[in-house]
């Protein structure tokens, strides 16, 4: 093992970590917001809205992100309407496009995950809320959302880790994050194994931290499911 090479590779790759983290956090954030809209449409009961949501989920879950990203970045600019619109200054930026396509994609998955969480809420608990006069947004905010989110959390952590890995595709649109930098390093040095080993370690550490965080969140949100605390038993 050539440790000086590994060390210098590590340094090069670590410099790309902020890019990866920006891609990751912003796409999770916007993807989550979009997912709320989609899931609201999906369960609205309105056939047009839920049809649209179903179609959205089908397309964005069913096709490879690589193709989606390519079409968003290189495809949108082909249309004069977009190129001469007020949106172009934003869409012109590779970072914006990368985050946009990552967010569009994760919104499809996340919407399905949230819907699963909502369906897992006991209808009886909802009835209990209705019976004291809750309805509409109050019911969603106080009863439905907290329970649904707790149910959705395990699946959502998986999706978040998948997103972290998906950011690896952003180098397609000239955003040079960790994997892209690793690939570029390989085509300069041809030392595939060493470079990828460093990259693998970086992702493993990042994902490990994320999963620990999610587990902590899950733990703190499941007080009501845990065994009886000693103090209460007495």
């Amino acid at each position, binding site marked *: 093992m050539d440790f000086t090479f590994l060390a210098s590779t590590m340094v090069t790759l670590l410099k790309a970590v902020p890019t990866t983290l920006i891609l990751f956090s912003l796409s999770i954030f916007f993807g989550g917001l979009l997912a709320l809209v989609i899931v609201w449409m999906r369960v609205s009961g309105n056939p047009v809205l839920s049809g649209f949501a179903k179609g959205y989920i*089908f397309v964005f879950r*069913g096709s*490879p992100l690589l193709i989606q990203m390519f079409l968003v970045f290189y*495809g949108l600019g*082909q249309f004069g309407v977009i190129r001469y619109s007020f949106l172009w200054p934003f869409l012109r930026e590779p970072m914006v496009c990368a985050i946009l396509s990552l967010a569009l994609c994760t919104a499809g998955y996340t919407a399905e995950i949230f819907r699963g969480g909502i369906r897992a809420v006991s209808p009886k608990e909802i009835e209990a809320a209705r019976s004291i006069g809750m309805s509409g947004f109050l019911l969603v905010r106080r009863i439905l959302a907290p329970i649904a989110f707790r149910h959705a959390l395990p699946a959502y952590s998986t999706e978040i880790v998948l997103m972290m890995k998906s950011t690896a595709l952003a180098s397609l649109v000239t955003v040079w994050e960790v994997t892209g930098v690793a690939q570029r390093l390989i085509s300069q040095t041809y030392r595939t194994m060493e470079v990828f080993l460093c990259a*693998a370690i970086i992702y493993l550490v990042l*994902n490990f931290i994320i*999963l620990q965080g999610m587990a902590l969140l899950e733990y703190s949100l499941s007080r009501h499911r845990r065994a009886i605390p000693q103090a209460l038993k007495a």
Partner: protein
Amino acid sequence: MASLELLGFGSTGWGALLIVAALMTLAVTATALAIGAVLGAIVAAAKLSGNPFLVALGNVYTTVFRGVPELLIIYLIYFGGSSAVTSIGKAMGYEGFLGLPSFAAGALAVGIISGSYQAEVFRGAFLAISKGELEAASAIGMHRGMRFRRIIMPQVLRLAIPGLGNVWQLSLKDSALISVTGLAELMRTSQVAAGSTRQYFLFFIAGGCLYLILTSLSDRVFNGAERRANRSMPASAMGQA
């Protein structure tokens, strides 16, 4: 649009190649899912065994293969696998290079990743089996093996179907990454067609549509399987699964 001719089946059309590539994607993913099922079952068993060493081993497996980008794993297996096979060949007296064929390398890589997800699916399904039903089996004198075969297995399979559907979806798209091994699956064929004709949008959209067709076909299969397996469940509970 003249360029649409490029998608036809004539001598200048790429239709036939794209269909063959879609079938190749299907074949790789199905093989990977089968490999993953075996690995997943073993890893799930290890994680449920209660033996601290096996549990730790299982955790390392699921953490690593779910935490490292798929592309890196595919590279590691494609190149690492070849050197392993070559050195085994050497040990057995064969001089020269031995490669892992790209289909095998790709299916193995995606299968190993798929196994880490399937392990969690199986484990969840096992934990979802009602404890009371297991006790009822013990109470009439079923021994461990019989309980596993008659009560646990059928229910794990039923409870795992929706989860396996998701893993299939993931593996289908992971298979797009094994284009680096040169296997002519759907993603690579779309890229090659795009590069050879310079009709990038046409072929990426066509490729995307073929993926959507594969998705909707496989959705249908999994939904059918779920319906069959859920015969024993009331309609309302089916929605919850």
